[in-house]
């Protein structure tokens, strides 16, 4: 069997497929054939495949409904393995050789699906089913979820990494035209001829939009021919860019529109260096929305049978793809739309069993042509029920009295029912752009009203569906857009003549009542299995707002976002609650218009390209030394240098002990460095730091703390006076960027009178810190032209010198608590100087240490760091540093320090913790609770919280775990026992509060 539903070649309307070539593809393992120009949907129909999926909730058999982005049913699992993609609309998949597609949501097979039992039990699945059923007991939710995930849901995502790549493209243009149908092409022609930079995008494989599926003439030629000629004309314009296979899916502020271009989705695999998809971020001076309209169905009983489709889709399958959707068709309509379908299908050889028109007296040229063709018109009738299971077998029609069914039903045999309930303009992007919508009573649909951005709407998207009007409006919009973007005088090009018949008025009708209550399911949203009865139930239960209705019933919440169901659903709600449709309103239109893969949104920023990586000048050395690295912001920092046979802890212990006993060296290039110059530099430092800077001598440094205006510690570091008006400030690695912006804020916004310049020099200087009792010996061996004695270069002293012939800055500062020197050198020479220091240190037993050892050294020394201890809620006094807070001068945040809460006696204060049992580990993040009844092991809540463990480490120096903590009034509680309770491990460890400085509290080692 092959393509039995493919129309014979020949004739004026033989479709836009290439019959000379055959494409082989597979669907659910069956090999089928189609032609270039087909979509998966048209090829399936050509092969007589009607059943393409099972529904979400009831597992009802479902067929193809639409022909484009609106398709709610035919969701396909495309490709296999790591390239598989779920929930792709078969109507938008271009057929290609080797295409592999699987139906979804069925088990074990599409034809025999065990989940269909849900349909028999459908009484148990009303609206709000999940909320009602799975509320209790809460502990069962895990079980429910497992079950629901298996039987409901859609396709499966790939479990392996995506092997393809994706690109981002940032562009500016004068006029972006969304939609390459007649209106869009005219807009592009109008704007392009004035030389404006124009981008035209269309979601289809080819430009042309809906007219590719119509038997219409433009300028005396078949519409597809006119499209091709216009496209060629546009392609010849140097400033016009045509993007087919490209969906505009988001409309953001200041006319930024996001497009997804499916570069290689129409081939088996992307070519070498070809992205699968490309995200375009377009900034347009003006946007023309020529997005067309989406036909809407009419709701009636069992309207989801495979074979029930939109009238425009049935027509397009015949006219564009040369596929007859069935052998015998019934039309069901409330407007002229279905008549074109009837005439086109009749001409294609389909048996037209009747046109069921809800209008009592359809008049006008199209009904007249249908009558003349001998087609039976059942005026004033409606389809009340569809028959069939896996395929439609017929319908029952009944006379309409107003909105009610009357008389007795009559069967009509058919395998296709083509339905037209009117048209909804595709206002999605207009609405995303914050444009206001208006309900048009004559059209029975929402149309664009007031724009909020530089946007024009043309053609069907504006609710003007006639072809001639689309062309004229497109031309007008394009010319206006070009003029407002600075091109041309706004004269539109002439509108080409068209052949279309003027349509007769339509009758707005949303849903046909059931023949008798409960007979059949009247689906509003076929993708999410929401029926008219669900909408009524939701309204009865009080969900009368459209936003509540949506969430309670899941109407319009599927991957199709209710393109064929939202308006119908809210119209039905409007009828039930007795409010006019405009008052009920629409739900919010949000991006994306159609689903976009994460791969496209993320683009090339994956793996090592996720963020820029910052390396210090000595990075290659650390790599060679076998360092393990840790991310510190964007920096890669050496975490530890493990030797063969060592565990991580052994390596850390070795690095710590070597630094405490001999000498260590650590790369501190990542610390923020800010060069501060100007006559008011001292005054500036006095204002940004809590301590005083006026008396700092040239060649000396000082440690300082900055506060925020709320009095909390913001950052800390040393600042050294290099000259009378010249300082070098260091910041923490994490806050380097923030401190820079902060200083700029104060200088530019608050104190523009201060003559101070600041410049970030973090990248310009590489920095290495020597620490340990032998540090001076190492430096002495390495340095030229510097007396490194304690007298010549005392603690917090500064000097310039040379190492390996390269000028360096030497600062005598220490973070480890040991005798320390920090050497700064122009980054380009960082490696040379580091190697010179290593060489000089060799005979003294120098070892590099990483951030882990650095952390241990600072915890042993009781230094706070920004983040764990200075967490945005701690003051200088909380950290035991009130000695650094000047009483005599003003500084940022000082006024906050006297607010009552900051003087409270039970504030959390920085302390040290030692385990009572030396074998116990104190875990970071532990809650500290008091010793005594009601706490510790076996305690009953409430257990008052006394503090929290902020940093912990194993101290090789002390031979046990130690920790820093913030404890209520902690400084007065030294010696007290608390319990470190870890909610994660459930373990409680008794700990003793001790001073936060574990080693050398007098600081004697710093000053030798």
């Amino acid at each position: 069997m092959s393509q039995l539903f493919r129309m014979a070649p020949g004739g004026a309307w033989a479709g836009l497929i290439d019959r000379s070539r055959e494409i082989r593809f597979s669907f659910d393992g069956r090999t089928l054939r189609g032609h270039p120009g087909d979509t998966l949907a048209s090829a399936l129909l050509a092969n007589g495949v009607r059943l393409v999926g099972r529904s979400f909730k009831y597992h009802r058999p479902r067929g193809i409904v639409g022909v484009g982005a609106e398709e709610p049913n035919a969701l396909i699992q495309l490709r296999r393995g790591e390239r598989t993609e779920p929930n792709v609309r078969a109507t938008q998949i271009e057929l290609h050789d080797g295409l592999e597609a699987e139906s979804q949501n069925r088990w074990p097979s599409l034809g025999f699906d065990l989940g269909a039992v849900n349909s028999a039990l459908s009484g148990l699945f009303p609206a709000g089913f999940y909320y009602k059923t799975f509320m209790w007991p809460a502990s069962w939710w895990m079980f429910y979820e497992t079950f629901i995930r298996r039987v409901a849901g859609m396709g499966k995502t790939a479990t392996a990494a995506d092997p393809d790549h994706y690109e981002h493209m940032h562009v500016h243009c004068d006029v972006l035209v969304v939609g390459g149908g007649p209106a869009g092409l005219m807009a592009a022609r109008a704007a392009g001829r004035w030389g404006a930079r124009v981008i035209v995008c269309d979601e289809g494989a080819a430009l042309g939009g809906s007219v590719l599926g119509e038997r219409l003439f433009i300028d005396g030629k078949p519409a597809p021919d006119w499209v091709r000629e216009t496209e060629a004309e546009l392609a010849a314009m140097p400033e016009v860019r045509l993007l087919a296979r490209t969906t505009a899916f988001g409309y953001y502020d200041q006319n930024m529109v996001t497009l997804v271009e499916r570069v290689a989705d129409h081939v088996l695999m992307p070519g070498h260096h070809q992205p699968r998809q490309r995200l375009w971020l377009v900034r347009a001076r003006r946007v023309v929305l020529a997005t067309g309209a989406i036909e809407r169905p009419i709701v009636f009983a069992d309207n989801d049978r495979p074979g029930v489709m939109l009238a425009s889709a049935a027509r397009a399958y015949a006219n564009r793809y040369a596929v007859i959707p069935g052998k015998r068709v019934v039309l069901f309509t409330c407007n002229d739309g279905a008549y074109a379908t009837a005439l086109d299908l009749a001409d294609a050889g389909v048996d037209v069993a009747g046109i069921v028109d809800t209008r009592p007296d359809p008049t006008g040229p199209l009904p007249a042509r249908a009558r003349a063709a001998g087609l039976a018109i059942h005026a004033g009738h409606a389809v009340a029920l569809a028959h069939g299971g896996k395929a439609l077998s017929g319908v029952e029609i009944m006379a309409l009295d107003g909105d009610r069914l009357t008389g007795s039903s009559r069967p009509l045999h058919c395998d296709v029912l083509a339905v037209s309930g009117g048209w909804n303009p595709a206002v999605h992007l207009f609405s995303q752009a914050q444009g206001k919508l208006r309900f048009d009573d004559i059209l029975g649909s929402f149309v664009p009203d007031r724009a909020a951005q530089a946007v024009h709407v043309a053609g069907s998207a504006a609710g003007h569906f006639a072809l001639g009007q689309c062309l004229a409006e497109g031309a007008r919009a394009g010319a206006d857009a070009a003029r407002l973007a600075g091109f041309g005088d706004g004269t539109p090009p002439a509108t080409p003549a068209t052949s279309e018949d003027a349509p007769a008025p339509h009758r707005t009708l949303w849903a046909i009542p059931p023949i008798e209550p409960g007979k059949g399911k009247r689906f509003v949203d076929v993708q999410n299995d929401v029926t008219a009865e669900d909408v009524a139930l939701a309204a009865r239960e009080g969900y009368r707002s459209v936003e509540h209705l949506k969430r309670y019933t899941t109407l319009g919440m599927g991957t199709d976002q209710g393109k064929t169901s939202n308006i119908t659903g809210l119209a039905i709600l409007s009828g039930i609650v007795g409010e006019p449709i405009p008052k009920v309103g629409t739900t919010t239109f949000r991006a994306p218009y159609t689903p976009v893969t994460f791969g496209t949104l993320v683009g090339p920023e994956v793996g090592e390209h996720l963020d820029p990586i910052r390396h210090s000048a000595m990075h290659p050395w650390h790599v060679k030394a076998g360092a393990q690295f840790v991310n510190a912001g964007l920096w890669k920092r050496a975490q530890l240098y493990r030797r063969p046979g060592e565990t991580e802890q052994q390596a850390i212990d070795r690095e710590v002990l070597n630094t405490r006993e001999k000498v260590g060296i650590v790369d501190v290039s990542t610390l923020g460095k800010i060069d501060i110059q100007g006559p008011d530099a001292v005054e500036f430092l006095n204002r940004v730091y809590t301590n005083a800077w006026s008396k700092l001598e040239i060649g000396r440094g000082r440690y300082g703390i900055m506060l925020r205006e709320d009095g909390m510690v913001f950052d800390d570091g040393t600042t050294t006076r290099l000259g009378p008006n010249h300082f070098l400030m260091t910041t923490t690695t994490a806050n380097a960027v923030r401190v820079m912006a902060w200083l700029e804020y104060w200088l530019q916004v608050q104190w523009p009178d201060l003559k101070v310049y600041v410049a970030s020099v973090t990248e310009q200087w590489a920095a290495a810190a020597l620490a340990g009792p032998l540090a001076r010996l190492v430096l002495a061996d390495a340095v030229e032209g510097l007396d490194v004695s304690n007298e010549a270069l005392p603690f917090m002293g500064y000097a310039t010198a040379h190492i390996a012939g390269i000028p360096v800055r030497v600062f005598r500062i220490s973070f480890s608590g040991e005798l320390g020197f920090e050497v700064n050198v122009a980054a380009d020479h960082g490696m040379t100087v580091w190697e010179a220091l290593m060489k000089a240190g060799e005979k003294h037993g120098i070892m590099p240490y990483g951030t882990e050892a650095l952390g241990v050294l600072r915890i042993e020394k009781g230094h706070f760091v920004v983040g764990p201890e200075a967490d945005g809620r701690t003051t200088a006094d909380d950290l035991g540093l009130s000695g650094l807070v000047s009483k005599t001068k003003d500084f940022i945040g000082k006024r906050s320090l006297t607010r009552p809460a900051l003087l409270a006696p039970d504030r959390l204060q920085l302390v040290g913790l030692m385990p009572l049992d030396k074998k116990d580990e104190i875990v970071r993040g532990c809650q500290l609770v008091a010793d005594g009844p009601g706490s510790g092991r076996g305690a009953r809540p409430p257990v008052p919280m006394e503090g929290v463990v902020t940093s912990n480490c194993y101290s090789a120096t002390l031979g046990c775990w130690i920790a820093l903590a913030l404890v209520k009034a902690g400084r007065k509680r030294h010696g007290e026992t608390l319990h470190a309770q870890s909610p994660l491990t459930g373990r409680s460890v008794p700990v003793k509060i001790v001073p936060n400085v574990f080693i050398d509290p007098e600081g004697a080692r710093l000053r030798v």
Partner: protein
Amino acid sequence: MLLIDCPWCGTRDQREFTYGGDAAVKRPADPAAVSDKEWHDYVYIRVNPRGSHVELWHHNAGCRRWFKLRRDVVTHEMQGSAPIGSELEPPLPIAGRPGKP
């Protein structure tokens, strides 16, 4: 994604900028002289107007200048920017704005 008009560099993408809060907040000239309430209001209390709002922005990935920007926080319409220390023009009347027919 906003388009922001830096008074020094021209119109650039939002990702070059950092938001810096309400530009109308005045720091007390002498913090020691104000009451706890006045200081509290300066540190914590911000108006949240619906509509036009003058904000501070920092062109951190550009000229690194702080400047004032008038923006409609409902529509995200940009209504002008100015260097610190100079006054911003009042917003244009509705008819003169882009996109309004």
